[in-house]
Each structure stands twice: as C-alpha cells, then as structure tokens.
C-alpha cells in the first residue's frame, strides 16, 4: 500500500536534539495528527519530510523508495505538499496567482494552472478572494489560501502546520470540515499539526505525540485523550480545547 514514512529519523542542531529516532507513517485518505509541547520537534519533522531539513540520521520514504537528499521542490513534485506555521504567501501576488505558482511549479501550463486554481478557490469556498493581493488578507484567509496553494496538482500527501492557529472555534469548525473533505474527496493523506486539541481529537484517526524530539505516545484519539503521559506533558485545562463548543455544534 502506498505511504509516506519517516523511519528512525533524528535531527540535531549544534548539540540540541530536535528529533530522536522518530517513526511516522502517513497513508492516503487518512488524517493523522501530530501534537506535542512547544519545541517538541513537530515542525522539524515536517521540514525533514519535505526536504527543507536533512535528517542527521534515518530516512524518508515514499512508497518504500528513499526521498532523502531531494530538494524541497523535488519533494513537492513527488506529491508531498505542506503549509507553513506562518502563512508565507506570495504577498505581492494576487491570491489566484499564489495558487497558480504551484501549478506552474509542477509543470502545468499557465492556462491549466489558472483553471485549476479557480476551481480550487471555489472548492475551498474563497472564490471571491481570487484578485485580492495576498499580502492584505487577514490571518484566517491567509491560512485557507495557503491550504489551497498546497492542494494544487492534487498532492497525495499534505502536511498542515498549525492551520487553525488564530481561528475562532467557529472558524476552526469550518476548517475541520475542509480537512475532512481533503482526505475523503481528494484522497489525500493528511498530517495535521495543531495545538487546538479539540480539532485534532475530533478529526484524526491516529495521533502521534512528540515530546523533546521523541514519540511518547501514539494511537487513536480516545487513547491519547486518556493517556496520563500526554495529559501531563501537554494538555491543559478545557479552555484550550474549545471542545464544548465543537461538540455542541457537530
């Protein structure tokens, strides 16, 4: 079966061990969660998976073939997309062109890229933003554009780094519906990094918990929610999960 995996990945930065022997597997159509305290190594793991950071040890494999050593754009061309913790939109370009760039980067003609970009914006529900200059968008819209950009060319995998940060519970709820559709309708394998625990618990089939670069727990949402280790290292009061609101709405 096809999959994207990190095997035994370690990363150190001048003495600081950001990841130690991490294994992770993402499969198409499935939403996996990655949570953990600040500085646990979540973003670093995404960087390793997408070619932005060379692992000190270990390999990245796509369907069993090693990806290690590929440049970010090469990784993207193999169908592994990501978003960033900050928006990192092309601020001077219109929203539509933001999406088109990925199309072009993947080798589409501009004509095809425009067509897909327009369809994609509509699909996400932000078709009206097409001509706005990306740099003037408010935070939440930025996030959605970033997701749209990553989805261009229908990647097999998409890695979302804190897509709900700064969203209200209600906005997060829309986002969660969107992510579900990405997995179900587009068949993407999704890796979701979030500090909104309610969102992660509600969406993911499988959750991995990192702490200080190592996996301390993994399993289905229920198991994670009940894990004493996770609660101790990471969870806080209910105020952080916005769970009551979410549950009330679903």
């Amino acid at each position, binding site marked *: 079966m096809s999959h994207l995996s990190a095997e035994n990945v370690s990363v150190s930065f001048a003495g600081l061990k950001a990841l130690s022997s991490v294994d992770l597997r993402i499969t198409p159509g499935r939403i996996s969660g990655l949570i953990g305290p600040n500085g646990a190594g979540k*973003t670093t793991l995404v*960087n390793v998976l997408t070619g*932005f*950071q060379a692992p000190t040890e270990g390999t990245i494999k796509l369907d069993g073939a090693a990806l290690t050593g590929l440049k970010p754009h090469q990784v993207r061309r193999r169908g592994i997309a990501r978003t*960033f913790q900050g928006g990192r939109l092309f601020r001077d370009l219109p929203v539509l062109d933001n999406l088109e760039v990925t199309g072009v980067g993947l080798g589409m003609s501009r004509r095809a890229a425009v067509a897909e970009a327009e369809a994609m914006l509509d699909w996400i529900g932000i078709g009206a933003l097409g001509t706005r200059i990306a740099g003037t968008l408010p935070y939440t819209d930025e996030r959605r554009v970033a997701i749209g950009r990553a989805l261009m060319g229908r990647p097999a995998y998409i890695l979302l780094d804190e897509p709900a940060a700064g969203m209200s519970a209600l906005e997060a709820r829309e986002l969660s519906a969107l992510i579900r559709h990405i997995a179900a309708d587009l068949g993407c394998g999704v890796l979701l990094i979030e500090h909104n625990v309610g969102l992660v618990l509600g969406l993911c089939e499988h959750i991995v918990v990192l702490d200080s670069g190592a996996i301390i727990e993994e399993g289905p949402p229920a198991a994670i929610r009940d894990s004493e280790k996770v609660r101790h290292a990471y969870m806080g009061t209910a105020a952080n999960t916005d769970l009551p609101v979410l549950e009330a709405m679903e």
Partner: protein
Amino acid sequence: MLQILFDALSLGSLYALGALGIALIFGVMRLVNFAHGDVIAFCVFALLWPSTDAMAIVFAGQLPWYLLVPFVLLCGAGLSVLCEIVVFRRFRQANPATMMIASFALGFVIRYFLLMLFSSRPKSISLLPELSQPVEILGARLPLLQLITIVTTMVILIGLTLFLRQTRFGLEMRAAAENFSMARMLGVRANRVIMGAFALSGALAAAIALIFGAQTGTLDIQMGASIMLMAFIATVIGGLGSLGGAVLAGFLLGAASVIMQVMLPIDARPFRDAFVYGAVILVLLFRPQGLIAARGTKERV
C-alpha cells in the same frame, strides 16, 4: 616577508575601516550606503578652501593634528547625520533597492556639489607630513603612517565591538536594525539610535579620508569610490551584519591584493583584480552567508 605582511595589513586596514562604516549602516537600516564613498571625499575636501584652481588652498589641512583630527571626524559625522535626517529617514519602509538607489543619488549630489566647489581636478596637499617618516620594526621598514593605520583600525574595531556588544545602545541598535517598528513599540528611540549609527559611520569615513589623504597626498573626488566598492564587498563576504566579519574580510581583500601583486608574473599582474574578484565569487559560493555568518542571517523554516 614581514614587509609584505605589513603592506597587506595597511591596505587591508583601509578596506576594513570602510567596511565597518558600511556594515554599521547596513546593520541598522539594511541600507547599502553608496554615498559612503562621497562622504569620504567630502571629508577630504573639508581640508581645503573651496576653489576651482589647480592649486589647493589649504584650510583645515594646516591645523595641528590634535585639532585637525577631531575637526575632520566631526565633519564626517555631521554630514552623515545630515544625510540621515534629510534623506534616509524618508526611506525607512522602502525596499533595499530603493534605498540603495537613493543613497547613490545622494552620493551623486554630494559629488557634484564638491565638483562645483573644487572642480574635477585632483588636488594635492601635504597632510601630516611627519607621518611619512619611515620607521623600523622587526626589520621591516615602513612609513609611520602604515603603522598608525593598522593600530587605529584595531583599536576602532575592538572599541566598536565592545560598544555594540556591551552597551544598551548597541543592543537597541541591533534590535532597531532587525525590526524597526517592533523596537519602537518596546520604547527604543529608534531615530536616535540610527542617527548614532550614522554618526559613527561618518566618523569612520573621516578616518579613512585622513589616512588616505596623508598616504597619497592627493585629494580626488573619485577617491572614495574605489574604497567604498572594496569595503562593500568586504562587508558582504565578511557576513552582512557582522562587524568582525567585515573587518576580517577587509584585511583578507587587502592581503589578496598585495599577495597577487607579489606572486603573479609581470604579464598577469594587470589582471590582478580579476583574480581577486574570482576569489570573491569562490568565497561566496562556499560561504554564501559570509565568512562569519552573523546571527540571524540563518533563517529557519
């Protein structure tokens, strides 16, 4: 051998001083200040009385050194601060290319202003002639001036580093450099800080002007330009924002130049600069962040 070392050090010192002046401004404003060379020229011409005759009419140039040096330093600092207030202040939010062209245009204005007052003719002056005496150290004979240049550069470098590292002013300056409006939100009086940096940079330009004037005896409107260019290169290969790097690279460029001059066969010697610039490209390829990458030039994803 030792002689060559001193030759390299003294040429390197000039570049290093120039690089410091540029790195300081780049540090606070992300501005590559192409007017720096013209500030140097201005300081040099501050020694003379305006006249378009071939013969120079000496003005400040005949003051005793203890008055002359502060006077020229003040001229440099003053002009530099004036440039900040009148021009660069309006470009705080502008992109680097715009600022650079503005600085170039400003340099142009200063240059033609000098040209109007002094004509394009290079002027000659005997500046601090006592510094042309040769002295002997460790068996190498070199003009006293070279020695003074080397020592001054070292002292300035150490002083400046301490100043920026250890004082509040230095910290605020570096913070303002990185994010101007955030620094202001933290109560940093950023305009003053930047003016301070310009004053320092102008004083450094003046120091170069003095050394250059004393060494060559020639005052030429173009003279700042070539130093400025080398200094700019030194700033970048040293590692932008790293003052130590700028100085190191300045010395290395000086050394490279002197060593090429000594080593190359006569027919290849005119191509000396091509080799030096080739080396610059190589250094950049292997260390794009510069020899001493300043903190913060590394960006994480």
